[in-house]
């Protein structure tokens, strides 16, 4: 078993490292895929494991995006001038400045959203069930609307992130840089989530999901763990947002950063498609969803949102357990569940 795992993981890592060379035309798509997996996996941590279905993780994603770009510009040039008049034409980052900027920016974009989640967590996570869902939906949209009114980050006209340094002549370099940084974040997120899956922390989160009152009665300080769970999500959402901002090269408040209509729904949908509350579910869900989206959307241009809406309805109504949930029901032995044959038979007879 152990050896099988080792082969699986090393195979996946080699595949991940070789992917930009094997499919060099699809580097942007691969980067998207990594980011989607990170988003789905961390959404699952608190949506699937903790039972707090959030529509508002897009808040941290957008925050990370704006923070990375702002830090990257603000470290070397006046931010207000940059956003006011397309500063990318006046000010040019040198290679060293660019990478220093994005490095510090990503660091900030991971830490600050996590701190924000910690700060608002006590107030927001006291809400339960659908109130939490609606409240976070409101938060995400409010953030987009408010960011669209703040002058220093470009307000409604958007924020152009620093272009990739022109001194690097290799045309592949930009794609590779963003792919490898997103892959690095993916590996980091996977290791972290895997660690959580093997720890007591996950059991506590599951206890909160199954019955919060009882968990509290058992002496678990639920609020503390809920906040930590949300902070982990926020940490990786911020990182993912920072990378996406650099990749897209242009930040709009409601269509790119706080894009509740796309990314915000995608992460929920991907996690549900793959199966909430499983380690591999969100990863498989995100991969499937990405293939579906990229394969189908070019053929039904204009109708993609209709397809997305219908897909949401169909998945939610007919497939709420997701792929892993379905497999689990079909092959319970594979998931380490032991079924008493006698008991199962008597259950069937009862029906």
């Amino acid at each position: 078993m152990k050896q099988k795992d080792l082969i699986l993981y090393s195979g996946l890592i080699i595949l991940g490292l070789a992917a930009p060379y094997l499919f060099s035309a699809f580097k942007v798509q691969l980067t998207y895929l990594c980011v989607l997996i990170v988003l789905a996996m961390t959404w699952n941590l608190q949506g699937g494991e903790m039972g707090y279905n959030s529509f508002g993780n897009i808040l941290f994603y957008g925050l990370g995006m704006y923070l990375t770009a702002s830090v990257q510009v603000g470290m070397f040039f006046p931010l207000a001038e940059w956003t006011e008049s397309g500063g990318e034409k006046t000010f040019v980052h040198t290679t060293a400045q660019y990478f220093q900027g994005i490095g510090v920016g990503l660091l900030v974009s991971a830490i600050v959203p996590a701190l924000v989640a910690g700060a608002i967590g006590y107030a927001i996570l006291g809400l339960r069930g659908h109130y939490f869902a609606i409240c976070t939906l409101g938060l995400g949209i409010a953030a987009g609307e408010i960011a669209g009114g703040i002058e220093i980050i470009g307000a409604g006209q958007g924020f152009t992130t620093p272009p990739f340094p022109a001194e690097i002549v290799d045309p592949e370099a930009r794609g590779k840089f963003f792919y490898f940084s997103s892959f690095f974040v993916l590996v980091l997120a996977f290791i972290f989530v895997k660690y959580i899956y093997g720890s007591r922390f996950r059991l506590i989160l599951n206890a909160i999901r199954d019955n919060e009152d009882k968990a509290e009665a058992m002496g678990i300080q639920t609020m503390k763990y809920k906040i930590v769970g949300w902070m982990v999500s926020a940490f990786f959402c911020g990182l993912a947002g920072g990378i996406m901002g650099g990749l897209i090269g242009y930040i709009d408040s409601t269509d790119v950063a706080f894009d509740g209509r796309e990314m915000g729904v995608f992460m929920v949908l991907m996690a549900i498609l793959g199966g909430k509350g499983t380690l591999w579910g969100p990863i498989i869900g995100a991969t499937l969803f990405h293939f579906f989206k990229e394969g189908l959307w070019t053929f039904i241009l204009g109708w993609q949102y209709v397809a997305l809406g219908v897909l949401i309805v169909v998945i939610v109504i007919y497939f709420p357990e997701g792929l892993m949930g379905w497999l689990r029901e079909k092959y319970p032995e594979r998931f380490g569940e032991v079924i008493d044959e006698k008991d199962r038979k008597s259950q069937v007879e009862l029906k």
Partner: protein
Amino acid sequence: MDFLIFQVPMLMVQASMDGILLGILFALIAYGMALQWGVMNIINIAQGDLVILGGYIAYTMYLAGIHPAWGVIVSPIIMYFVGWALYKLVINKVVDRDLFISILATFGIAIVFQQLMNFIFGADVVVAQSGYGTTMLFDNSVTLPNSKIFSAFISLVYAIALVVYMKKSRLGRAIRATAQNARAAKILGVDTEKVYAATFGINAALCGIAGALISITLTLHPYVGLPYTVRSFMIVIVAGLGNLPAVAISGMGLGLFEEFADYILGTEFRIGAVFMLLVFILVYRRFKLSKKREYLK
């Protein structure tokens, strides 16, 4: 404080009048939401999009040369069947399930509606001209479009008609019985499936009326549905389910808040302020209840 609204007192009167008239309209949408939330235990994210669809029906009439005010009669009739069809297609499968499922499913419906409206009616901001003119008050310092007064009046008429209908009619009694205890109602011979479909239809019809009124008082755009959903959700959680006077009052309060936020924060933060108010109300309720060791249910 150098806000314009505090320097010119007449602007306050203007904002208050606008807010109250607008708030009555919001209350109508919220009443629909409270109805289906109370009866079917479903939170309908597509509520705002039903409103906008109703508005586009009135707008289509306006384009065809019919006065858009007739929309307040035509649009609810069409929307009733839209709501009924929506119930039969999707909603009946999420009635007994987790609320999150209904939120997500109606979110999907909202996306489909938005995009279809975008295809059919275009992405422009449109308004149906009612040609009702304006009323000037206080030496012409406060202007009140007659269409707003008309819309508030029609909303009140429909709200009262609905309350009477719910009290007196057979269907109204069945709906109230189902809301109290669906199982008991079923045992006593109420066809709950029919009641649910009718409830969702009535909700959609209310949205249709509100949409037709919005088409002549405010503006229509395929993607502005969600703020109406959030407004009605907010009104319902403040007022509680099935308390009509409270719904009306908190609707007016929300209207006032919005108009003042518009003047004080600036128009670009208006929608942001609505969503932030939602967050603040929920957090306020949460802290208030947590003192009693309870939480919002």
